[in-house]
């Protein structure tokens, strides 16, 4: 595959308890995002303290949508759903015209400009936000 200048930082998958490696989500330099999402700087350490800048997201495929090799991601709170969609599409090598839907609680599809941090606050459990993704509308 043609490698664009990527700034994704890959931590080697950990074999310790916790399973898959956590990776930083980098900004798409070419895809415009709604203004509410902040750029993620690669290599940023999470500041100590109660409010972590990043939250953990677990991505689950629905139906015959391709499964991401890495399912667990540490994502900036201000990243938007659209930003996440663009990232997943790129990771799965989907073409831009293909649609991707993201669902919370297997019940609703948040607005593309919705921040993942807010979703985590309201719908996260066990320290992570579980999101289902699908190439077609799974839950209407």
């Amino acid at each position, binding site marked *: 595959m043609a490698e664009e200048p990527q700034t994704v930082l890959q931590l080697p998958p950990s074999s310790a308890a916790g399973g898959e490696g956590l990776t930083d989500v980098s900004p798409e330099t070419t895809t415009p995002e709604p*203004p509410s999402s902040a750029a993620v700087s690669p290599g940023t350490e999470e500041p100590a303290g109660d409010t972590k800048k990043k939250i953990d997201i677990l991505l689950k495929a629905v139906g015959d949508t391709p499964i991401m090799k890495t399912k667990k991601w540490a994502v900036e709170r201000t990243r938007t759903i659209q930003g996440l969609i663009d990232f997943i599409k790129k990771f799965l090598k989907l073409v831009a015209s293909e649609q991707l839907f993201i669902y919370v609680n297997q019940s609703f599809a948040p607005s593309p400009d919705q921040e993942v941090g807010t979703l985590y606050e309201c719908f996260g459990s066990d320290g992570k936000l579980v999101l289902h993704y699908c190439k077609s*509308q799974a839950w209407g």
Partner: protein
Amino acid sequence: MTDDKDVLRDVWFGRIPTCFTLCQDEITEREAEPYYLLLPRVSYLTLVTDKVKKHFQKVMRQEDISEIWFEYEGTPLKWHYPIGLLFDLLASSSALPWNITVHFKSFPEKDLLHCPSKDAIEAHFMSCMKEADALKHKSQVINEMQKKDHKQLWMGLQNDRFDQFWAINRKLMEYPAEENGFRYIPFRIYQTTTERPFIQKLFRPVAADGQLHTLGDLLKEVCPSAVDPEAAAVIHLYSQLKHPNHLHPRKLNNSSACSSKHDYKLFGAFLKG
């Protein structure tokens, strides 16, 4: 219960007198007159402006027309926000009518979502309803409904049918007798003083000691700067009752916002029934 119904009707039938003017930059074959419309506060711009679109497209050539978008004093208007929210955030202190500029080119990709069809509006609306029920009932009530019930909610909104909408929505506003309210209150607080999007957090309607939480309690917990008398921030607090099943902030002016003398029981005044 009767005065609650009056409040519900007042909210549903709230209107904003609006004047739509075509942007000067648009290419027209002849002069376009402004178009006046009463906008429903509880609806969405792209759902209620077909006539506006037709009116201006009559004086334009097909090749100069692409997706319509709206702007107020330089700010692109997010169609996916309820109309009343947009007005209260941006224009409530200006004289009526609300003057909105209409555009058919140079869609601001960074600021606005596209609205490809009425289906997109329906999908967005239903998603908001589902998100609210996820907070209120762990999605149990909305998931138990049939598809035709969901459709009725949407049709009620689309066709401005209060009774049609509330026949279904009332089920989403119920809670078991043994509980004192919903699991969590769906709310969003929008502030005019920041670029940040809304505040939305988990908030229980009842305190540990069984007391009903008030609006003041909510503010103190999720937006403490709002109740700081020294803060210059003007908070727009909306009570857009149950639309779309979220308590949106209601506008309070500077000092009265901070005195918090408004002891509205979240349930009694706004969400009961």
